[in-house]
């Protein structure tokens, strides 16, 4: 809302500087957006929150100033002199949709002379950046900006049948607005019509046909109340935002309608001449009496933490326009003014008192009670995961929760359901809630490849959203990783992570043939026998989909499982004081034998003496090992808790293991 300094002065004395005024207004609810001089005036832009439509006019702002500086407020009486016959003999108003238009008033002035506005009026509108058109149109804008109630003036001669009908539009009905655009109306649009056609979109915009022009002599002044939602829907539907619709989307003063109509008539008579028909056509239910609100003085301290003397509380409320109906040592009862629909409860009055009294009176050094806070297991594990990933050389990425629908099917291991989608895309084509973080990370990888960045090692911790048949979707937190190194290196990263968070729980892998992975280079991971996630080399096809040039290894881990397997408090184990003995084994086996089989036998054979089993390398050579064979080089480190292991004992264990490997897997030590 832009305010003119000169205009404001009309209603309240301004014994302060612009800075003093705007500082004080900012701290009492009208936040300063900025001000600048316009001619000999100053345009002050203040932000009006949606609960304060009373401040969408100069009078409302003047009232705030009068309360804050304790100055008198001068409100124009708005008493136009009627001369002609009764307005009800000249025109009629029928409201067919009182749900959309609870009140409609009309006044008629005949014999006006359209011309330019006087300088003072034109200047004030210009300060506000409002276009100056002619005296009548300018006056209706002026009154709206004075009191906040929008008005419309029709060229009365052009109203077919000389009547107003407020109704819902007929499906497909056409309407030409004053901007000369023709709109096809939806059936629920509230329109102002004459005997034949729609002449205005209620509360939003007038029509071209009945617009006030140079030749207009007779006017019908509309001042009405329209349903907020109806105005908002019309505005949105046609993208027609106007100062009028902006106000009607809020709760305006129901008792201000007639004042605005009278004030408009008064100014037109003064500035454009003419004769005002007697009386007013006022269609609408009588307004219900406003409710009284009780404020217990104790509540002030209970909510604000400061005491404000009762007298001050009562004065603030009265100054704001509340009518005091009761006051005692305990409480005050008031009827809030009609323009303050936001004041209906005790807490509303507490806020009024607080903002006028000043929030700077509230101390910032209260003795707030001390309590212990706790960190959830999940919170602690997530920190461990992040720290581990960072320590292992990965940068943390953050990507959008919604993705292009095609990306969902690219990798969809956690659900087979169609993705949840948003009505409007969250960003560009991203309207599907993701079921895996990996497509987003591949896109981030491509961004970096495009920028010629090397070392694109990324991880992200975020949710995926799996549809369910009832209730909220299944939201699961995942760790997604993308790397440019090798399958085994990324597997090592996950092993370190699992050992960091959930030591002692077995991590196992088995081949997985998801088409997202290169054939034979994908794996399903389990932790303690439960599905932990997936790991693999991204297939050529998927790389092409994301336009990735270089080899990409990815993994996705279900952090819910990791959290439940986490060991948050570690227990110390007794360490053996005796020296370890190490033995290397170079085992030749058939190609089909997997390390997991070898490992299983070695662990079983060594029993609890095995301190460490280290795989070193695989080797293949048809020449040296024979066709279909490979060798696995690994070492075992043995240590006893009860005494020094002798070489003989170590050799014996080694022999047992070798024998078992021979029997179970056909493995032989390499000669």
């Amino acid at each position: 809302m832009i305010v003119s300094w000169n205009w404001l002065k009309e209603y309240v004395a301004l014994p302060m500087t612009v800075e003093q005024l705007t500082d004080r207004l900012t701290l009492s609810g009208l936040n300063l957006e900025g001000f600048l001089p316009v001619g000999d005036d100053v345009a002050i832009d203040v932000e009006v929150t949606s609960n304060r439509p009373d401040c969408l006019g100069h009078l409302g702002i003047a009232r705030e100033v009068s309360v804050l500086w304790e100055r008198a407020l001068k409100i124009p009486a708005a008493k136009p002199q009627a001369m002609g016959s009764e307005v009800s003999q000249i025109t009629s108003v029928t409201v067919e949709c009182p749900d959309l238009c609870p009140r409609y008033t009309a006044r008629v002035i005949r014999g006006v002379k359209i011309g330019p506005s006087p300088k003072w009026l034109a200047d004030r509108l210009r300060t506000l950046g409002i276009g100056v058109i002619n005296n009548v149109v300018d006056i209706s804008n002026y009154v709206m900006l004075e009191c906040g109630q929008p008005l419309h003036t029709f060229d009365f001669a052009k109203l077919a049948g000389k009547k107003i009908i407020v109704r819902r539009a007929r499906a497909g009905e056409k309407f030409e607005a004053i901007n000369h655009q023709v709109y096809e109306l939806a059936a629920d649009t509230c329109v102002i019509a004459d005997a034949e056609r729609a002449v205005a979109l209620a509360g939003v915009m007038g029509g071209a046909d009945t617009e006030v022009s140079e030749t207009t002599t007779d006017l019908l002044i509309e001042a009405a109340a329209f349903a907020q939602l109806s105005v908002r829907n019309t505005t949105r539907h046609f993208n027609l935002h106007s100062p009028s619709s902006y106000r009607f989307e809020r709760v305006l003063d129901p008792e201000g309608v007639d004042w605005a109509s009278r004030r408009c008539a008064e100014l037109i008579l003064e500035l454009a001449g003419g004769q005002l028909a007697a009386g007013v056509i006022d269609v609408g239910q009588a307004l219900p009496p406003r409710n009284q609100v009780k404020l217990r003085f104790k509540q002030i301290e209970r909510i604000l933490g400061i005491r404000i003397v009762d007298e001050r509380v009562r004065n603030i409320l009265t100054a704001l326009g509340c009518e005091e109906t009761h006051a005692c040592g305990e409480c005050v009862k008031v009827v809030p003014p009609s323009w303050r629909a936001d004041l209906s409860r005790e807490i509303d009055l507490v806020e009024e008192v607080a903002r006028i009294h000043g929030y700077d009176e509230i101390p910032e050094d209260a003795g707030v009670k001390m309590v212990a806070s706790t960190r959830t297991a999940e919170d602690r594990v997530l920190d461990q995961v992040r720290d581990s990933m960072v320590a292992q050389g990965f940068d943390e990425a953050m990507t959008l929760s919604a993705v292009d629908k095609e990306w969902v099917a690219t990798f969809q291991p956690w659900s087979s359901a169609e993705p949840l989608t948003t009505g409007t895309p969250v960003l560009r084509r991203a309207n599907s809630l993701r079921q895996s973080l990996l497509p987003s990370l591949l896109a981030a990888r491509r961004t970096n490849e495009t920028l010629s960045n090397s070392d694109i090692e990324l991880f992200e911790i975020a949710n995926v959203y799996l549809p369910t048949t009832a209730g909220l979707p299944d939201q699961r937190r995942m760790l997604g990783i993308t790397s440019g190194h090798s399958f085994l290196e990324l597997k090592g990263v996950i092993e370190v992570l699992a050992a960091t968070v959930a030591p002692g729980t077995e991590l196992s892998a088995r081949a997985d043939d998801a088409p997202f992975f290169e054939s034979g280079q994908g794996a399903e991971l389990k932790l303690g026998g439960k599905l932990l996630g997936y790991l693999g080399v991204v297939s050529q096809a998927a790389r092409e989909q994301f336009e990735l040039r270089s080899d990409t290894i990815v993994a996705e881990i279900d952090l819910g499982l990791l959290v439940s397997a986490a060991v948050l408090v570690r227990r110390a184990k007794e360490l053996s004081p005796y020296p370890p003995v190490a033995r290397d084994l170079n085992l030749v086996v058939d190609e089909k034998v997997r390390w997991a089989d070898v490992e299983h036998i070695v662990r079983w054979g060594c029993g609890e003496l095995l301190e460490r089993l280290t795989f070193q390398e695989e080797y293949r050579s048809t020449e040296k090992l024979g066709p279909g064979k490979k060798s696995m080089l690994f070492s075992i480190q043995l240590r006893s808790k009860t005494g020094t292991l002798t070489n003989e004992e170590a050799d014996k264990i080694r022999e047992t293991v070798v024998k078992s490997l021979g029997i179970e897997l056909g493995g032989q030590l390499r000669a």
Partner: protein
Amino acid sequence: MALADFLATLDSLAQEAETAFLAVGDVVALENARVDFLGAKAGKLRQVQKGLGSVTPAEKPAAGMRFNEVKNLVESAFATAQARLSSATPESRESVDVTLPGKPRRVGHLHPITQTIRSMKEIMGRLGFTAVEGPEIEDEWHNFEALNIPLVHPARDPLENFYLGVAKDPPAEAGSPGPFLLRSQTSTVQIRVMESTLPPVRIISLGRVYRPDTADATHYPMFHQIEGLLVDRGVTMADLKSVLRMFCQSYFGGEDEVHIRFRPSFFPFTEPSVEVDMNWRDAQGNAGWMEMGGAGMVDPNVLRAVGYDPEEVTGFAFGLGVERVCMRQHGITDIRALYQNDVRFLEQF
């Protein structure tokens, strides 16, 4: 042999060895000295050790202890001499060009938003607030109704929210509470906590929220919020101001004294509602007020919606935009950089 004699022999051996090892000038001399004193068969130490046998059993522990001390002394004299010679010998190792670059191990970087959230959580934790999270896809009850946002409120406009549908319309589930939407604020979590917990409640809720803003330098349709909530008997706005001051002092304060300013505002779920500013001094020493976020006393309607009695308890709530604080602190000028994931950007933090 008497104990005294044995000890005297040991002492003179120690002194002799120390002098000898100090005197050696090359590896040959060092090896000779080693054999002389520490030789396994005929070294002087070995010789003296034999004397241990002739000490009386009662005196043996004392003699043994001293022997071990001297042995350690001689060995360390040898080690010192060895170290001295190896470092003094120029041809024994190539010298390093110490100005060559080191070989760093790759370390990763936490996203700046994570770092901001971490320190906010950590400070609020010290102030007694427990961090909670909740669903990002919400129903209208938690996102609006319970938060005192009625159907007519502009925030309910479908164009102001990301409502969900499904790609292929499944048959509508009977009794499904939908429609669902991406939450537009983390206050939803506060409602969920209050619905399932009796007061006192002292939490911060945080996470991703979504609003249909066109992406530009200062807007992104997804961002992070952190919201605090304290509901108990006797909670006042002075408590709110004090907690915010302590938070800001911890987060930004440094040596400057931080003050908090409230400006009236309007939010459906709090009343009174305020915008929170803290005093701020930039690198050039310009002082001013920095907008931190919104706050207020929990609206009685919200307390009632979760089954609390507003006559029994009061509460305050506040919300901060994580991106805004993060960007200001790190000098990030375009919010989109936070979600582009350019590793050159990420590696700065």
